[in-house]
């Protein structure tokens, strides 16, 4: 295993975002409000989604193991 903490970190990301993208946490954003015309729920889901991708990218690219 190149990066000893990679596995637990990945798992943590999974757990955190699983909770963020499901109810009950999701219900926080599940309200009829809009930001710039775009519904808040949409902002929340896509924003969280993008954040997760970003975190994964950082974790996996910065700690790339040497061949």
């Amino acid at each position, binding site marked *: 295993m190149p990066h000893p903490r*990679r*596995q637990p970190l*990945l*798992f943590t*990301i*999974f757990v955190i*975002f*699983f909770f963020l*993208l*499901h*109810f009950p946490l*999701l*219900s926080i954003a*599940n*309200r*009829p409000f*809009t930001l*710039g*015309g*775009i*519904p808040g*729920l*949409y902002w929340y*889901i*896509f924003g969280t*989604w*993008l954040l*997760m*991708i970003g975190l*994964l*990218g950082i974790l*996996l*690219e910065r700690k*790339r*193991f040497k*061949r």
Partner: protein
Amino acid sequence: MSLRWLILGGACLYLALLFGIAYLGEQRARRGRSLVNNPYIYSLSLAVYCTAWTYYGSVGQAAQQGVQFLTTYLGPTLMAPLWWVVLRKIIRICKAQRITTLADFISARYGNDLALGSIVTLVCVFGVLPYISIQLKAIAASLSVVLPPPGPKGDLLGWADDTALYVTVVLAGFTILFGTRQVDATERHEGMVTAIAFESLFKLVAFMAVGLYVTYGVYDGFGDIFARAGRQPGLRVLFVLPEAQYADWFWLTVVSMLAIFLLPRQFQVAVKENVNEAHLSRAIWLFPLYLFLINLFVLPVAFGGRLLFAGQSVDADTYVLAIPQYFGQEGLTLMTFLGGLSAATSMIIVSTVALSTMVNNNLLVPIWLYRSSARHRSAAALAQQNVGRLLLNSRRIVIIGILLLAYLYYRLVSERFSLVSIGLISFVAVAQLAPAVLGGIFWRGGTRVGTLLGLSVGFGIWFFTLVVPTIVAAGLLSPTILAEGLGGMRGLRPYPFLGLAAFSPVPQAVFWSLLFNSGAYFLGSLLSRPSVAERNQAEVFVRIFRRSSSRDGGRGVGIASLADVQALLARFLGKERATFALQSYRRRHRLPDSSEADYGTVNHARRLLAGVIGSASAHVLVTSVVREETLVLDDLFEILNESQQLVYANQRLQQKSEELEKVGRQLRRANQALQKVDHLKDEFISTVTHEMRTPITSIRAFSEILQDHPKLSAQEKDHFLSTIIKEADRMERLITQVLDLEKFESGKQTLRIEPVALDEVIRDTLDSVSQVIKERNIRLRVDISPHLPPVAADADRLTQVVLNLVSNAIKFCDARDGSIRISSYLIDGQVKVNVIDNGPGVPPESRAMIFEGFFQAPHQTTKKPVGSGLGLTISKKIVEYHRGRLWVESEAGQGAKFSFTLPSVGHHHKLTY
């Protein structure tokens, strides 16, 4: 008219392009400059997950339900971080065991079970056929959208259907061409993967293009679309998720998380076609990024379509095509259409390849093996035929068969349903494999029985809750089952199943099927015992990361002749490749040349074969070639070895315990002897003290008399005094003897050893007692052999012995007519001396006891015993000290013969003292 030809021409060009790319990919691979060995290509190939369902169906679903469609994509995104463990493990296992399909994986894990492989294959085929059919439906539907109606609508639909058939045929050709080149299925289909990656890119670009157009071309950006939608209550309600759908959100995400690696096509591209595990780390974030991008414009397009086509009966599934077409954007429409085509074709190609391999390896080959063996032909003899070509052709036939079946399904069933609903049914079907797969790689306790139970239960529930309603809707089954339930039981209705109405139909099917599946899997595994093969495989699978890469993944099957193994391989792989494979293996492991293939080689051959016909069938074939029939010979050896060691250990233990027992016995005996000696000592002490009392009593008595009667006569005084003196002497003698005896007992006796002439000793002794002999008128006869050799002895002690014997003889010989005879001669190298008297003799019971201490003959007439009773004891001790023997031969009333022997000097006996 021109548009029709434009579309058709475009489609043909596109497919030609696909062929070209696939060909290019293959050529590059052959020349060693693989295009596929690239994390971006790998990530893009994973995007085969996005099919016409994504392209068309998402928009349709979003237009009806809002964000619910995102669960299909959030699931894989959430699963991605776990890939590092789950998927990597699966990839590692498959590489080690040359597993090529999901059915192979499960069958291999649970003991290379053919039956299990067949069942999983059937689950996958039944589960995925609908999925393929909706791709065909999407193609037909998209065609009917873009093409202007030439005549009555029915005409177009029929034409579109025919086109779908043509597309099916073309795709069959593509799949056969690029999916079945080689016999060894572990060889990657580089051409196919390259084509798929291209298609993924193309469909993404096409979709984003149309999305951008709708958002910024037709409307003024995201804000504009949603603001407008917000003004329509029918649309505004879609801005949030209704509470009733909270649970659906969860279960749909779960089933998508499972589908991302359990769908046959996903397994194919993610596991089997994986070139390098390292690519996985790039894919973990690239693939979710792809999903994000392709879904970015779904909602705008959906709402845009709703706004645009409000009041018209435009199928929401086709908005993505209908909008650019509506605005006369021909180029964009064409590109969008081709994007949808690429989404559909990529799914069809990969799924069909995966399914056909599964069907071939897990259904056809076993049937062929079974039928052949049923005809009493050995499997090895079978392998003599050239089956390589046979396998390839059978796989091609299966491909055609699957595609035709999918087309049929489309015509019969799929037309009635939305893309998404059918797609989700497939998701739930493959999700039934989750307990078996996840349990298989993380839990060594998972067994075949558990898997069979779980799969049966899960599949059954899936079929009942999801497929039966579609059959009813197709008019093939009476609708009473929907209303009344199975056998009239309302709890057994497809929906709500078991009365659970909190979820929608699909999520509740997910819940029930997974619940019962997992439950049956766990219970079945816990309650059943895995076979040896299962346990081995479980060990390999669960511990794959801890095994070194060079060691064999599987257990040995036995030893076979190298020629046999090679011949078997050659039938399937071709002679050259078989030889090369075996040679390189033996070279790599530095095996000596021999005519025998060892366990490792046989295993390697089995794995190579597994790549072609699946591991279960390979197992059967290889074991038939192996000399010993048993599949578990290696295990038998190990068991034998273990039991041998146990036997040795047991023997050693037994020896030890025997020794311990012996020691115990010795200890007991010694203890007993000690106790006896102790007892004897006590007796001795008591006897000695008793013996000493007697003379002391006499002395005291007489002394008192003398004291009390001073007027005794001188004669009387003299008599008493002499008695006192005599008793005192007696005591002294006794004490001396006891001390003497003690010295003998304790080994502290010192003897002066010198050569002694026994005849002299006897004569001297007789002289000393001659007086008594004369007084008692005892006849004495002396027979001493002349030339008696001397004995090594202590002269005084020897005298003591002879004196003791003679004194006894005098004491006990007949009172009136006493006769004593003494003889001495050499016999057997020993000097023997006999003292014979004609006294009352020694009865048998006393013969031993007279040598014990203080024994007094019972017939003595004198009140005061002569002698102390220790004489014979000491004599015996003395004689024994001189390495001799002293004993008596006598019968009651017939005199006694006392004899002793001593070794003569000539025999060089050493005295130890």
